[in-house]
């Protein structure tokens, strides 16, 4: 008990003097309720079971650690894709750098504007999905984000959105501490693709809440990190309705600390939820954590979790994945794989792939492996005249391929594969 009290005291100290941004009644209420949740739960510490493999102290500290600006930048991603660019600089929306937001089939507003409107559709999503996602596992950093988010956009797709929406996060200030919150509502039978790129800030807290209507389609491709000292905690909460499809892929390059939490709740029958990630980490100060929680609360749904990590020079990779099949969620097909390729002896992989099943007519499987590059495969390639470096890179790329295959759009997948190849070439 003493420990819990210490944690709550530390949380109070951290929250002392915090003022919540103003807005309409619902917005103020949502933020106040979120702050109350943080107070009840307390901010996470390394002693928490859910943080046993990742130290959250730099994410909870009052002062954000600084991060040098990008070097070795390979330039922006998805330049050739016809898209709507929404640019944030150190967590602040930049209208001048962004495209015109009026696009067919979608309404886009700045979060701050939406929160001034007394009756707004975002009221039913903002902080609501996050609050639902606090059980059975507490995620106080997400509640903190809901309370304090300073910027972001709200998007409502009403039809098939003609081009992808691209959030571009630029980083110009070595000491920036950004808190962004985006809300996406995909109406019944509507379809949208969301892209997210860029390092964002020295410290980045970002939340995405996604509500899918019946038959809706949501595709999400994200590239984060690159060669950078950034620390980030991101949360994605989605509620997935009947016959709808949610697919999310994240590619992570370097970065000091990244914790990506993805909390999916399947509430309608025959729905599909896929979440995948590939990460390549180099160096002792690289720590990457994928934490996924998929809840099946409907019949005949499919979920997939595919995570691949390549780690070297003392990098650390973490995977905490869970499939929860509630009573009555029959005919569930749940799949989960987490694999790491350790390129040297200093790197480590820490995993907790969990299943919790309360329905008997389901097929759920999980796998988790960790090991070095296959010597036989390496020998084969060498015997065919491939150089050591090329052979290793080729095998590394093929290891990551299974995760990249989860990206629905072939062109986007190809561009990320190309990025990966160049990253490997540069780091070998």
């Amino acid at each position, binding site marked *: 008990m003493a420990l819990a009290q210490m944690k709550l005291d530390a949380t109070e100290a951290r929250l002392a003097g915090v003022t919540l941004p103003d807005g309409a009644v619902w917005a103020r209420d949502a933020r106040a309720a979120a702050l109350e949740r943080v107070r009840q739960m307390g901010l996470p510490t390394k002693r928490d*079971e859910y943080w046993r493999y990742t130290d959250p102290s730099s994410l909870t500290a009052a002062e954000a650690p600084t991060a040098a600006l990008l070097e070795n930048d390979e330039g922006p991603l998805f330049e050739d894709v016809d898209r709507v660019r929404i640019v944030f600089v150190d967590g602040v929306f930049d209208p001048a750098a962004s495209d015109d937001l009026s696009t067919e089939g979608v309404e886009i507003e700045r979060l701050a504007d939406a929160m001034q409107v007394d009756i707004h559709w975002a009221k039913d999503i903002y902080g609501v999905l996050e609050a639902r996602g606090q059980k059975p596992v507490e995620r106080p950093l997400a509640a903190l984000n809901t309370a304090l988010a300073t910027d972001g956009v709200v998007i409502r797709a009403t039809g098939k959105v003609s081009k992808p929406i691209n959030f571009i996060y630029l980083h110009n200030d070595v000491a920036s501490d950004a808190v962004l919150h985006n809300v996406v509502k995909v109406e019944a039978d509507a379809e949208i693709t969301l892209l997210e790129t860029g390092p964002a800030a020295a410290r980045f807290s970002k939340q995405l809440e996604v509500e899918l209507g019946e038959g809706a389609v949501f595709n999400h491709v994200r590239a984060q990190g690159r060669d950078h000292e950034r620390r980030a905690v991101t949360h994605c909460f989605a509620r997935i309705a009947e016959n709808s499809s949610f697919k999310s892929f994240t590619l992570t390059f370097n970065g000091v600390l990244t914790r990506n939490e993805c909390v999916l709740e399947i509430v309608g029958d025959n729905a599909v939820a896929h979440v995948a990630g590939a990460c390549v980490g180099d160096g002792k100060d690289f720590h990457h954590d994928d934490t996924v929680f998929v809840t099946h609360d409907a019949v005949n749904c499919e979920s997939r979790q595919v995570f691949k990590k390549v780690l070297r020079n003392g990098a650390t990779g973490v995977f905490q994945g869970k499939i929860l099949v509630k*009573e*009555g969620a*029959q005919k569930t097909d749940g799949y989960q794989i987490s694999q*790491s390729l*350790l*390129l*040297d*002896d*200093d*790197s*480590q*992989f*820490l*995993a*907790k*792939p*969990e*299943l*919790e*099943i*309360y*329905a*008997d*007519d*389901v*097929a*759920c*499987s*999980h*796998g*988790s*492996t*960790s*090991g*070095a590059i296959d010597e036989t495969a390496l020998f084969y390639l060498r015997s065919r005249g491939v150089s050591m470096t090329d052979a290793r890179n080729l095998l590394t790329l093929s290891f990551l391929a299974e995760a990249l295959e989860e990206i629905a759009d072939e062109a986007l997948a190809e561009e990320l594969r190309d990025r990966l190849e160049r990253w490997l070439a540069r780091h070998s």
Partner: protein
Amino acid sequence: MNAMDTIEVKEGVDQETVDAVKELSGAYKHGWETEIEMEYAPKGVNTDIVRLISSKNKEPEWMTAWRLSAFERWEKIEEPTWAMVSYPEIDFQDIYYYARPKSMEEKPKSLDDVDPKLLATYAKLGIPLKEQAILAGVEGAEDIPAEGRKVAVDAVFDSVSVGTTFQKELEKAGVIFCSISEAIEKHPELVKKYLGSVVPPSDNFYATLNSAVFSDGSFVYVPPGVRCPMELSTYFRINAENTGQFERTLIIADKGSYVSYLEGCTAPKRDVAQLHAAVVEIIVEEDAEVKYSTVQNWYPGDENGVGGIYNFVTKRADCRGDRSKVMWTQVETGSAITWKYPSCILRGNDSQGEFYSIAIANNMQQADTGTKMVHLGKNTKSRIVSKGISAGKAQNTYRGLVSMHPKAKESRNYTQCDSLLIGDKCGAHTVPYIEVKNNSSRVEHEATTSKVDDDQLFYCRSRGMDEEEAVALVVNGFCKEVLQALPMEFAMEAQALVAISLEGSVG
């Protein structure tokens, strides 16, 4: 009525399996009670009770001090809550910590002297007559040649060891097999050296409590180079009401030795839940091998979850020497609550740990069980095979840890956990922790039934079997392989278990 009677079973689950599970856990066969005059220590636990237990066992001062320091620590720590089990709060002051049959105050000289009720207890539990005589502590019976297979037994009845068989024959081989209280008296140097060296008194809440109040248990020492001439076993029986059983087992396999050890346990049916918190420590030196098999059949409570044994057990083997080997085999069918993680510390280079488990939970039973494989030495190997079967409203959790330390180069782990649900009101859960800190080790964890050995599958397929038949054969074949390793009184349970197939597993 058995809750399973009304349950619809999904397609693909073998009916024979359903019947076998029903048979195993539907009616508890060992739920009767021996009416026997008992001697109790006062209810509750405090320093006086700890001293009393110590004095009843005629222990030396260092042992009493050891217990008291554990008790002091226990008072400061809290009960763990991380396991996926729920039960009403245990009132640790409402339990008897020491109970022994009055007739055991003086050791009986012949069969006629033994309390017939005690005798009947062993007869009813199905222990062979010859051994029964010895079990009841009859002096001289040990010289009669045993028929058939020899298994030495240490029988623990509530808080005391009633007797140990074949001691003389084992002595000839240099093997020490006796109750832990006897070992403290006769072999203090061994007990002092090893007790608490694998599971320290500070290990966890229940182990700490056990360290303070353990009343008896078994002690095994196998000297260097000796292959123990027979299987050793301990049979635990809880009989007295409101009594907790806290036994302590210490097994030491010295260099190059081998021993196979069996453990069985039962308890009467009662409306009030009873606590069992045991500690098993195994020390495996260079080139030694220990096999530890358990059929845990404590009273599981009725179909509404009333009564039953709360089983909180800490079991750990320390493979200290190079090329040492330990194998845990467990069949868990009883207990209202099972909280048990037999573990292997693979300290020696080339050491090896194996864990095979079948956990069956029915009605309102809750099982949270698994293993820890801690790889510290080079080229260490571990294998985990866990089969969880849930029926009725039961919850069955596999919880495990595989840890590859930076120095455990070239090590290997393979983990497979399968779960089978019979009915739609039960649950099956998997909580594995995987920590890999070097790259020359390989760790694989999987939980699908289709992932059976490809070579074996190919062989079956090449003989004309279809895929499903082949998988079933291979999986069942594996089950049988594990169960055949369980001899003696386990034979009955094992036989029933053989009918279980894991078709329709959910992973």
